[in-house]
């Protein structure tokens, strides 16, 4: 204390210095708090398992992920390719998900439409980013530790990543045409758009190199992986989109003749929750949905599709993506079992009323695998009734989507939680299936004038369509079963989901579908038949809008759909469609989301240029 009173300042400084010293003594005081908690850094992944897991991450954006927004990113493109293509109405209630109203009404420049378009744009480029990240990481691991991979695996990883990169870019190409194409070493994320020709060149280059690198059978026997055949088939698809028909024929016929793909034996096995049928011979590329897979949120169980179930009853929620009257009418057949739209082009679409079992008109059996309609068993859930399942008939019509609906007996439904588990399942979403490839080849063959083979290809698809029809599928729920038996006593104890199309139990419809009896008489007739078949076979699969745009007939078809075709018009069936904008030249491509154009700004220049007309 004496020192303190004699030299107080000295003592004070000493106190301060001492206390300061204690803290500064631990030299890592600041740096020890710096690393992120609960995250990995790039070093943790620089090994074989890191590369493989990064590749898995690149597959996942085939459907929406928890980091990618709501429904604009759905694997099936339902809000773009199905709704607004004449296949489906938005459905649900008028005000729910207003962006889809604008997509359906071709008001694509609206802020709401931009919201969905931006989700899609962001989502496909996230796929590109993840694919490219895999390639970069693979390269760096191969450089730093060459022994980490066998050549086969290294090639396999690279091939899968390059294939995925091509797929994601192709999605962007179908939407926007003039898109920037990103390879793995690029770091300028504000690149200008490439032209469609340049994009096609890049896509084909990627698919070629993927096909060279990839094995013919999926790596590790894992069916979700791309193979050299996946890449080849996809190349054919791109060639058809590019109008390179001769090249497409070479590619697709090679795939057909030498590849592993075949049509499923019957149509009910194409879209299914039964594990025994999924990933069959028809699958070229599918989003491998999984439910009850350990993710309590059920986020891998078709996140992007979960609005697309019947509204009421067991399914509870949403009731979007309701098939149109036009689509239902399109499934009608004439006495010969051929599409009525071809034989009666002015009247096939004249039915404005709810098309029910009681009408019992001849139809393509694919109708009842595609559309839930009054009085017809809804797979094995019991009879479909408008009152139970259609949410707002004035708005969305009386029908419900059916292809992506799981069979109750399949056990495919999510049970572990999530937001609307009854609307989620592990039904794989086909991104590209063999029937699609066959019809693409048929299209190319028609354009090349090879009508005989084109007829043969279309007939392969039609023949398969005629194998089975919706059966009684008597539900396990006693009340639902009683209701069905009361309506159709013949269904007593008949739990068969799929039956031969002439089975006597199918009293709710007259099913008929026949192959074309003779070779298409002309290119024009062949073209019409192939296009008709694509709609019938691929309805509600998100393809139609892109098909129509590819064929250059989108404006005619879609304006006709609204204001009159085949004796019916949609703007009087669904009154809100009277507000639709006319489908014009600019609609040939979607507008690039304005926000992305703004974000591409460098200095004062927007590197991304908007598509024509927008």
């Amino acid at each position: 204390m004496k020192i303190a009173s004699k030299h107080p300042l000295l003592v004070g400084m000493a106190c301060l210095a001492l206390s300061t010293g204690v803290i500064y003594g631990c030299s890592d005081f600041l740096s020890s708090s710096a690393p992120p908690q609960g995250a990995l850094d790039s070093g943790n992944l620089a090994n074989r398992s890191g590369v493989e897991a990064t590749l898995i991450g690149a597959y996942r954006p085939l459907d929406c992920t928890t980091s990618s927004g709501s429904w604009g990113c759905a694997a099936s493109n339902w809000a773009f390719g199905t709704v607004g293509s004449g296949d489906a109405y938005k459905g649900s209630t008028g005000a729910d998900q207003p962006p889809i109203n604008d997509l359906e009404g071709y008001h694509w420049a609206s802020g709401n439409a931009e919201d969905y378009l931006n989700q899609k744009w962001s989502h496909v480029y996230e796929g590109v980013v993840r694919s490219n990240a895999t390639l970069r990481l693979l390269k760096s691991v191969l450089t730093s530790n060459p022994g980490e991979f066998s050549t086969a695996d290294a090639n396999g990883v690279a091939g899968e990543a390059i294939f995925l990169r091509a797929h994601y870019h192709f999605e962007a190409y179908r939407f926007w045409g003039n898109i920037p194409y990103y390879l793995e070493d690029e770091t300028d994320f504000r690149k200008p758009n490439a032209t469609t020709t340049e994009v096609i060149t890049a896509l084909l280059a990627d698919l070629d190199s993927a096909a060279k690198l990839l094995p013919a059978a999926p790596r590790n026997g894992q069916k979700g992986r791309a193979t050299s055949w996946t890449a080849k088939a996809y190349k054919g698809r791109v060639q058809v989109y590019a109008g390179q028909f001769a090249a497409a024929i070479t590619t697709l016929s090679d795939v057909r003749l030498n590849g592993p793909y075949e049509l499923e034996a019957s149509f009910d096995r194409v879209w299914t929750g039964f594990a025994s049928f999924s990933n069959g011979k028809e699958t070229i590329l599918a989003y491998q949905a999984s439910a009850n897979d350990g993710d309590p949120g059920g986020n891998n169980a078709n996140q992007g599709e979960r609005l697309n179930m019947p509204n009421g009853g067991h399914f509870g929620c949403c009731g979007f993506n309701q098939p149109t009257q036009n689509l239902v009418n399109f499934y009608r057949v004439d006495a010969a079992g051929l599409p009525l739209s071809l034989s009666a082009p002015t009247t096939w679409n004249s039915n404005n009323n709810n098309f029910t079992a009681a009408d019992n008109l001849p139809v393509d059996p694919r109708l009842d695998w595609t559309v839930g309609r009054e009085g017809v068993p809804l797979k094995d859930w019991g009879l479909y009734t408008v009152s139970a399942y259609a949410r707002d008939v004035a708005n969305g019509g009386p029908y419900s989507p059916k292809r992506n609906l799981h069979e109750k007996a399949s056990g495919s439904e999510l049970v572990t939680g999530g937001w609307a588990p009854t609307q989620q399942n592990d039904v794989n979403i086909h991104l590209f299936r063999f029937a699609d490839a066959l019809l693409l080849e048929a299209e190319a063959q028609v354009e090349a004038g090879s009508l005989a083979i084109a007829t043969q290809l279309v007939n392969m698809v039609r023949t398969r369509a005629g194998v089975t029809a919706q059966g009684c599928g008597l539900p396990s729920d006693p009340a639902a079963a009683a209701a069905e038996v009361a309506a159709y006593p013949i269904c007593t104890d008949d739990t068969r989901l799929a039956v031969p199309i002439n089975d006597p139990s199918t009293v709710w419809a007259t099913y008929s579908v026949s192959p074309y009896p003779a070779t298409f008489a002309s290119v024009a007739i062949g073209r019409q038949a192939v296009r008709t078949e694509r709609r019938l076979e691929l309805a509600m699969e998100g393809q139609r809008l892109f098909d129509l745009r590819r064929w250059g007939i989108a404006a005619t078809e879609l304006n006709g759909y609204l204001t009159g075709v085949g004796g019916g018009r949609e703007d009087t069936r669904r009154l809100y469609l009277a507000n639709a904008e006319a489908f014009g030249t600019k609609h040939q491509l979607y507008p690039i989301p304005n926000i992305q154009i703004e974000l591409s700004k460098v200095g004062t220049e927007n590197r991304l240029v908007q598509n024509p007309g927008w």
Partner: protein
Amino acid sequence: MGANRRNTMEKKLSAGFSPRTGIVRQLCAVGLSLLLAMVLSGTAYGQNQAVTGTVTSTGGAPLQGVTIRVQGTDIRAVTDGAGRYRLTAPSDAVLTFSYVGTRPVQMTVAGRSSIDVTMAQIPYLEEVVVTAYTEQRRADITGAVSSLNVESAQRQTGASVLQRLDASVPGVTVASGGSPGSRSTVRIRGISSFQNNDPLYIIDGTPVQESYLNFLNPNDITSVQVLKDASSASIYGARASNGVILIETTKRGVAGPPQVTLRARTGVASPVRGYDDILITNSMDYFEVMRASYENAGDAIPTNIYGDPNNPSLPVYIWPNACPATAACSGVVTGVDAFGRATSVNAAAYSTPGSLIMAGSEGTNWWDAVFSSAPVSDYNLDVAGGSDENAYRVSFNFFDQGGTARYNHFKRGSVRVNTTFNRGKLSFGENISLALERHHGGMPDDPGGFAEDGILGKNILQQPVIPVFDIQGNFAGGKAKTLGNQGNPLKWAWAGKDNETRNNQVFGNVFAGLDMNPAITFRTRLGFNVAQRTTLAFTPASPEIAEATFGNSAGENRNDFNDWTWTNTLRYVKALSKHNFDFLIGQEANKGRNRYIEASIGGLINTSVDTRYIQDVLGTSKDVFTTGGQNSLLSVFGKADYNFADKYVASFTVRRDGSSRLAPGNQWGTFPAVGLGWRISNEPFLANNRILSDVMLRYGWGVTGNQLIPSGRIIAQFGGGKGDTFYDVAGGNSIVTGFRQTSLGNANLKWEENKSTNIGADMLLFEGKLNFIVDVYRRSTSNLLFDPRLPATAGVASPPIINVGQMRNTGIDFSVGHAAPSWSLSLNGSHYKNEIISINGVQDFFYGPISTRFGNQVINQVGHPIGSFYGLVTDGFFQSQAEADAHTADAVTGLCATPPCQDGAAPGRFKFKDTNNDGIVNAADRTIIGDPHPDFTAGLDMGLRRGNFDLNATFFGSFGNDIFENQKEFYVFRQFETNVLKDLFDNSWTPSNPNAKYPRIDRNDSFSSQLSNFYIEDGSYVRLRNVQLGYSVPSGFSRWMPSGSRIYLQGENLLTFTGYEGLDPSLPAANISGAAGDIRDQYRGVDRGAYPSNRVFSIGFVTSF
């Protein structure tokens, strides 16, 4: 005995405290010891003669509440309402008179039996206030420092004292909701940054940066100082960019025996306004709107609820369309009418959740079903006392605020112990509070991302025809078609009744000081903040709604954190004739860690509270997630103040801070400040000026920083999740691990810097009768820490945080006051202008963080304030089909007869302006349509005293701020078939009502509802925040009410003057965070259904003995 006791305690304090082990246990021991000490102390004294007298102010008005102590004894008295006192004292005793805000007076008794005293007020500039690390005389402060009128702020029943800051301190805005325990968003002088604009709170020297200070009992607070500019705040450098609020809870005992003060208040709260004031409550009235909506759209009018549209009637029963006569409902529905409506039912055969049968309601008042009045109470007991060698104060608080929403309340219990001990040159002690908070109920504090799904979003907008309960007493809902998509709001409230948020927090510090001589003082202080927050939540199955759900889930999370700050300062004060020096140097270290765990379970087999645990056997799926964070700051600082002859004041501070959140090489920042003051009234030329009695001019400039971003953002991070990167690559329903990059790092992260200039004046006018303080300022933030969005081609990984943005605030604050003994008045006002100067150098805007049903209504654009409203501009209605046709684009040419072309043009729909003049109305025509920032805010505080009565009132006003009334999506446009505004039907467009308030009612009109200035409302309001009438009990009034006791009646939010048509213009801030931190300032003033403020009537009682 007492001395021994104290020795024991000293040992404990000096030797026993270790920051590493058992903090809580040791603190408890200290607290208990103190209580014991208090009980055991006390000495007896003799008595001699009686003394009486009157205490008056210099103006002659009697002063109530003046404490008179007999020096060297325990004897004391307090003056009554007439200023009179009475005590007995030795005839040679010395009496000390003390009263807040006045100079203390000493008188010797000298045998007199009557002593009258006059007490003079301390002039404003002579007040001593606590500022950074020291106490300072006002006249030595060169920065902008405002004091909260604590007394006025305590006249409220909220959990936090912060909620009343805006009415009392100019330059401060506060947003908080009516939810009990609601968070307070305090902003000082505008908005500095795109994120994390919370000021730094220094509570008894311990820093904390968050907006829930509910653990702090308002009654413990002695002073609140707001350091508004950089020259006053920059000594807190690193974290002072948003201003600093110093809160002192150091109410200490005065020497003498224990003095006990009891404060009790109880009252009842009700919402200031309810939706039933503005929405339809009659079912048949609602049908008229519904009919118009279908009719005008050309759609058939549904008959399932109201029957014949031309002769509508209330349904006897409503049953879901999904209930065919052949299936589940058979046997239940025994009669139907021509429209399929059930007319009779067999209730005995009915069971849920298969179907839902409910009686049609004449008009359910959903607001009343959920909201009602609620009790509020607040009890405080303080014990204080001490001697020359020690002082103590222990306080207990129990606060219980019921929510006006059912099943919702907030409770807090807290104990605080403040002690100091003096041993010669050494002093030491501690201030510690232990608080337990419990918040119950399913009502979120603030609207957030869940607003629409919350009770107050659209669920409370349920249609009136739906009853609350079904025929069996279960919760009813809109399961039948046309009844909308809303949940039953009462059910949600009920289901959330056991949802609980708990906060257990120990907050405080231990300190020691060594006064080596009168000039040199060394102080050391270790502050700590240790807390555990737990949240329990339950989501029920909802089979009764349109989008029925059948699963339930429960979740809980826990966040443990501990933070410590060790501060050491050395102060040297020296006076050399007219030169006065005050130097301070110091060092500070701060470390914080937290660990968070979250878990949930779905498909609970049993939903009772007792089984809401996360165990495999109790449900079908579970999920768990943990994370954490850690950060540290290291600082040195110094301060030099110089005062020459009380005329010229100069102050310099500098601080150097190192932050672990920033990149090596950029971790250290230097924050200097300078302040100059000129007490111009002490110059000869103003001596004896009649108007300017005392004037101080101030200038300050300084730099402050901000580093409040998540830790670990220097490097790239990788991760993923089961639903994000995992994939079933084998096609066998089992997922395989996948990774993605989750965030991009920035290896050059550095400080955000705020440079601020302040010019101010403190003036006492007319011989001190009027007190006028004014400050003008300019604050410029640069190197703003922000994560501007990257193009999507870069992926979804969180963009790096960069230091590019700039923002500026300019403004003025002032206050004018007059305090006379019998009345007082103070008015304060402030204005600020916020402007974004730069975002990332290239981009000139980015959208707000939340999209509602019709898109994003907020834009942050260079040249405009943060969070501006964005949308189309209405231009009247299309009045005729011809006019609509003229604006409709031709299918082929894309052109229209009369530009601009507009999609969906139809009579009665909004016409929008073609703001970019390109001939088409589309998204590109959106423009800035409103500003959520007020032009001016003001607080007015009034006091009046007559005899034993006193009356106080506080008004608060906000002017010129816009509100984006997003609820119009529902209650005007009937999105999801919600209930609608009462005046919608009469004021909608029809050919005979062409200048209507609302567009034509039309269910297919998806165009008029586009985000536009139709949603913008003026949010200005003036509110009588508080009025209090008190009565001071005179001596001899009652034996159990000692003289000096006071009882009062209080009313809060009794009057509101506003043009805002929504629920309540006083909106809480949205609860939103982004990857770079809290971003609520990017989304202000959007009404998505907020918990309305409370009107509270209460009665209170304060007494000491």
